[in-house]
């Protein structure tokens, strides 16, 4: 499965400055720009079908 490598590379969004951080396994979990330690995961890029009711 090539889409999920052994070391997943994920982009997180900083809670403070909104900067996107690409982190690998083992990286310190904080924003690279402002050092804020709360990072949010990005919304999944899957299409959702919602009825407009």
């Amino acid at each position, binding site marked *: 499965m090539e889409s999920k490598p052994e070391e997943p590379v994920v982009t997180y969004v900083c809670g403070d400055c909104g900067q996107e951080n690409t982190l690998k396994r083992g990286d310190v979990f904080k924003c690279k720009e402002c050092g804020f330690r709360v990072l949010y995961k990005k919304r999944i890029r899957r299409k959702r079908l*919602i*009825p*407009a009711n």
Partner: protein
Amino acid sequence: MVTKEEKRFAKNFNINNLPDVPNGLPPHLQQTRVVSNSNPLTANASYVPCMGDSVKLGNFYENFKVDVISLTERDMEFDMIGIDAAFANAFRRILIAELPTMAIEKVLIANNTSVIIDEVLAHRMGLIPIAADPRLFEYLSVNDEPNEKNTIVFKLHVKCPKNKPREKVLTSDLKWLPHGSELLRESGGSTSKPKTYTSFSCSQDSLPEFANNPITPSDLDILIAKLAPGQEIELEAHAVKGIGKTHAKWSPVATAWYRMHPKVCLLGEVEDELAERLVKICPNVFDIEDMGKGKKRAIVAQPRKCTMGKGFIRDDDLIELVDLGSVENHFIFNIESTGSLPPDVLFTEAVKILEAKCETVLKEL
């Protein structure tokens, strides 16, 4: 159109001559007329005596009248005189619930990082009125493929840039996609050709009605959502045909309503000081008429403007002098279109639907 023979038949028609109608009943069962005493304390603007079996079709042709008072692209006010309340109400109900329109039904959200959650956003999109003639489209049933004959596809992709202030997402940001859906379905096999969510065989652009006027929402300044810097909405909305009965978003009228034309009568001379009091209570309806020699009296100037407020019943003297009721079979109709069709077209379509319903009933009999 109605022929002369049909008119003659209608004039001579008597419901009691039909084979199944029971005869020889006591009079209180045979007659179907209901009469009301126009008592101002209980008179209700919408209460109308039923016409019963004294209505003759021939008389209808002669007595029925329609007067259009005002007509704009969105609003219409007109009078229907000589029609039964059942018909007026039937037209009102059909206008609200059974005239088809196009409205967004499926929302495919690729990305939504705004504070408006997906479901609420989709609900709001459904309520956006779309300026597309529903007669040019077919219904989309569960088994059908969405194609250019039954679906209208819109795209909405707005991103609020990082250093800008908060941005508004308006209906003007909705882009019409005449070629159909652009979002690719995630398919399992990589060898098959990528499919989108619709199967348009030809572009809706090529149809004569849409060649030079693109399909847009009826109003371009409706606020859908607000985005803070960094937030993004990317979605595709598919509009299909439906009726108001299924969901109110498919109702083509903001609303449609009627009222009876008021009948305001002065039961005696209302003079001088009483007249002043009366005009003070209802200045829109009554007016002072100078009779010379310093005497004045009140006259009913504009009964149409009466709102049936019955303010005069609080006054002990006026309550005996003013009679308030409704003119029989005179309906003042108002239709407010949301923009898919002009109001006069909406009404003619409603008449056609009622006609079709009658046909269905007659066929079954």
